[in-house]
C-alpha cells in the first residue's frame, strides 16, 4: 500500500506471485519440499555434502544395506524441541544422539539412521545447514551413517521452525539380552553421571525463565558407555535405559511396572551438580523428573555392579557414575525413595510436565 505523501511505494519482490524461479534463496520455501528442482538443489547443496556415504548418494527411494549377523534392533523418535539451538547442542545433534541411544539401550551396536525433516517455510537455510552439519558430526562420533532421508515443507505458521524424525537400525550381538523384564530383586541400579542437566539447560534459554549462568545440555551418544558395560558384565547386565523425558523417576517407574518389581533409590547417592540443584530449588523442581540426554541407567546383577561402575568411571562421559539404588520385591511395580533423613516415600509417575511454582 502506498502513502500518497511519501512518493513511490517500496517494491518487495518476495510478495510477487511471478512463477519464474528467483535463483539463489536464503530461506526455505514450500517448493523445497515439492520434489522438483528446488528439492533436488537442497539435497545436493545441504544434505549430501554433510552425510557423505554411498547409500545416501545413490539417491534411491530407499537404502539397501548389508547388516552384520545378529538380531536387528530398530527404533524411531521425533524431535520437536524448542529452542532449536541451545547450549550444548541443537535439534539435529539431539536427533542423532537420541536415536543412537535408543539403539544402544537395546544392547545394539548402532549402524544406520534415516532422517526425515519437516521444515516450516521461512527457516533460514543457514540454520538448516548448521543443524545438518551438527547431525553429521554427531553421526560420525557415534559411528553411524545417515543413509536415507526425506524433506517436507509446511506453510509458515504450520510448524515450529523444524521437526526432525530419525529412525535407526543396529545389530544386537548373540547372547545379549537387555530388557526391563530381566530386573531381579537384589540387582543394583546405576546411573552414568549427574542427572537433570539437559532439562535445566533448556529451561535456561526459554523465555521467561532465564538464568544468568549458562548451563550446557549433556546431549551425547552413549554407545561407548553401553559397550564398556557389556564388555565387563555381559549377560549380568539386565536393563539399560536412557532417562529422557520424565527423567530418572519416569524411566525407573516404567521398568518397575514392566518387571513387576520394586526399585528403591538412595537419595544421598544420586549425583546432582550444584548448578542443577540451584535451578531446581529456585523453580521448585524435583531433579528426578527432569530430562537427561546424555545419561544411562543400568540395572546389573550385584556380582558385576562394581565392574560396570569402574568401567564407566574410566570413560569421559561416566566420571560421575554412581550406584543409586537396588531392586526389591515390594512394593511391586513402585519406585521408592529412601530420603536423606531416613524415611521412605513413593516416587510416582508425573502427570503432565513440571511447572515452576511459588508454593
Amino acid at each position, binding site marked *: 500500500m502506498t502513502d500518497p505523501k511519501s512518493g513511490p511505494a517500496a517494491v518487495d519482490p518476495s510478495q510477487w506471485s511471478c512463477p519464474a524461479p528467483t535463483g539463489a534463496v536464503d530461506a526455505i520455501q514450500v517448493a523445497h519440499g515439492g520434489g522438483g528442482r528446488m528439492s533436488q538443489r537442497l539435497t545436493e547443496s545441504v544434505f549430501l555434502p554433510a552425510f557423505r556415504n554411498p547409500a545416501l548418494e545413490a539417491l534411491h527411494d530407499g537404502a539397501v544395506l548389508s547388516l552384520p549377523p545378529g538380531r536387528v534392533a530398530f527404533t524411531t523418535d521425533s524431535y520437536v524441541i524448542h529452542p532449536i539451538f541451545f547450549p550444548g547442542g541443537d535439534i539435529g545433534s539431539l536427533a542423532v544422539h537420541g536415536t543412537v541411544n535408543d539403539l544402544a539401550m537395546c544392547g545394539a551396536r548402532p549402524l544406520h539412521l534415516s532422517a526425515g525433516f519437516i521444515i516450516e517455510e521461512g527457516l533460514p537455510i543457514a540454520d538448516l545447514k548448521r543443524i545438518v552439519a551438527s547431525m553429521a558430526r554427531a553421526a560420525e562420533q557415534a559411528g553411524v551413517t545417515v543413509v536415507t532421508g526425506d524433506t517436507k515443507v509446511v506453510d509458515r505458521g504450520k510448524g515450529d521452525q523444524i521437526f526432525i524424525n530419525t529412525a535407526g537400525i543396529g545389530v544386537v550381538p548373540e547372547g545379549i539380552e537387555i530388557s526391563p523384564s530381566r530386573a531381579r530383586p537384589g540387582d543394583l541400579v546405576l546411573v552414568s553421571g549427574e542427572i537433570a542437566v539437559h532439562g535445566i539447560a533448556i529451561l535456561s534459554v526459554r523465555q521467561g525463565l532465564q538464568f544468568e549462568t549458562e548451563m550446557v545440555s549433556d546431549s551425547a551418544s552413549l554407545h561407548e558407555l553401553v559397550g564398556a558395560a557389556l564388555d565387563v558384565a555381559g549377560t549380568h547386565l539386565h536393563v539399560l535405559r536412557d532417562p529422557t523425558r520424565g527423567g530418572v523417576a519416569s524411566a525407573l517407574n516404567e521398568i518397575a511396572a514392566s518387571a513387576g518389581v520394586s526399585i528403591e533409590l538412595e537419595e544421598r547417592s544420586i549425583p546432582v551438580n550444584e548448578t542443577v540443584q540451584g535451578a531446581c530449588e529456585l523453580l521448585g523442581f524435583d531433579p528426578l523428573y527432569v530430562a537427561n540426554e546424555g545419561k544411562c541407567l543400568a540395572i546389573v546383577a550385584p556380582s558385576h555392579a562394581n565392574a560396570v561402575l569402574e568401567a564407566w568411571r574410566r570413560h569421559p562421559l561416566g566420571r560421575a557414575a554412581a550406584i543409586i539404588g537396588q531392586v526389591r520385591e515390594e512394593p511391586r511395580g513402585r519406585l521408592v525413595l529412601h530420603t536423606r533423613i531416613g524415611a521412605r516415600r513413593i516416587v510416582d509417575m508425573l502427570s503432565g510436565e513440571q511447572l*515452576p511454582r511459588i508454593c
Partner: protein
Amino acid sequence: MRFVDEYRDGEAVRRAAAAIASVQTRPWTLMEICGGQTHSILKFGLDQLLPDQLTLVHGPGCPVCVTPLELIDQAVEIAARREVIFTSFGDMLRVPGSSKSLLQVKAEGGDVRVVYSPLDAVKLAEENPMRQVVFFAVGFETTAPANAMAVWRAHELGLANFTILCSHVLVPPAIDAILGAPDCRIQGFLAAGHVCTVEGTGDYEPLARKYHVPIVVTGFEPVDLMTGILMCVEALEKGEAKVGNAYKRSAHATGNPAARALVRRMFKTCDRAWRGIGVIPLSGLELRDEFKAFDAARRFDSSRIRTVEPKECIAGEILLGHKRPSQCPAFGSQCTPEHPLGAPMVSAEGACAAYHAYRRTA
C-alpha cells in the same frame, strides 16, 4: 547449597525427633498452615519420624487451592482473548475452572505464559505495547510485596497495558476461622515462615491469646519443621499459649518493613471468598482506588461467566483439616492428578496431590 543442605541433615532431624518423643506425654494435634510445609513433610517423609501420638493436620495454606472458582473462570475467560498475554505462576495453570484450566486455554491457542516473577510480566508489557498483559496475582502475604512492586513499576513506567487479576489471601483471618469453627481439634499451629518473614508475628499474638493455642513460626526444611514442632509440643506440655519463633534466621517479630510498607501503599484489605470454605471477612487484598486502573477485573468485563462447582469435591473439608484426602470418595478414582475435580489435587502443595504422589496406599 548453603542454608539448604544442612537443614536436610538426617542426624539433626533424628535428634529433633528424639527430643519430641521424650518431651511429649500426651496426644497432640497440630496444623501446619503452609502448603510448602505440607509438601516438605511428605517429600522427606518427616511424619514417619514423628511419635504416633503426634497428629499433623494439613491446613489451607495453598493459595492455589483456595483461589475461588469464579476467579479461575475469570482468568480462563480473559486468557482466551486474542489481545491478551496471560501470565501466571506455574502453580495455577492446571487448576480446573468450571469448564477448563489455563493449560487447556493454552492448548486451544490462548497466549498463556508461565513466569517466575511478576516483574517478568511487567517486562512483557513493556516489550509488547500492542497487547494487554495480565498477571494472575495469587498468593499469601509472602507474594504480596512482589505483586505490589510489579504494579508500582507499571505505574511509574506509565504502562497502559498491564493489569493484575488479584486473588491475594491473608493467613491470620484463616487461622481465626479455623480455630473458631465449632468442631476444631487443632491444639497448636505451625505458622508459615515466609509469610511471617514479610509480615512479622504481631497478628498472631491476639490469636494465641483468644484461642489459648501456641503458634510457632516455622520454616520449610526438615530440621526447621522438626524444631518448630518441638517448640510447639514443649509449649503444649507446659500449657503455654504463646507465639514462638523457630525460624529466627529469616523471620523477625517486625517482619520486613519496606515490604510491608509497599503492600499497604498499593493494597487494602477486603473480604475474600476461599474456595471450599466460603467468605472470610477481611481475609484478602485488593488494589487501592488510586491503582484500580491496574485491576484486570475492572478492565475486562467478565459478567457473563457462570460458575459451576463439581459436587464430588470436598476441598473445603480437606482444607480445614476435617478430612484426609484418602477419606474422600472420589480420591484416586474420579479425582486424580490427570483429571482433578478440585484444586487440592492440582496444586503441588495441595494435600490431595501430595497424598496421591507420595503416599497413595495410606
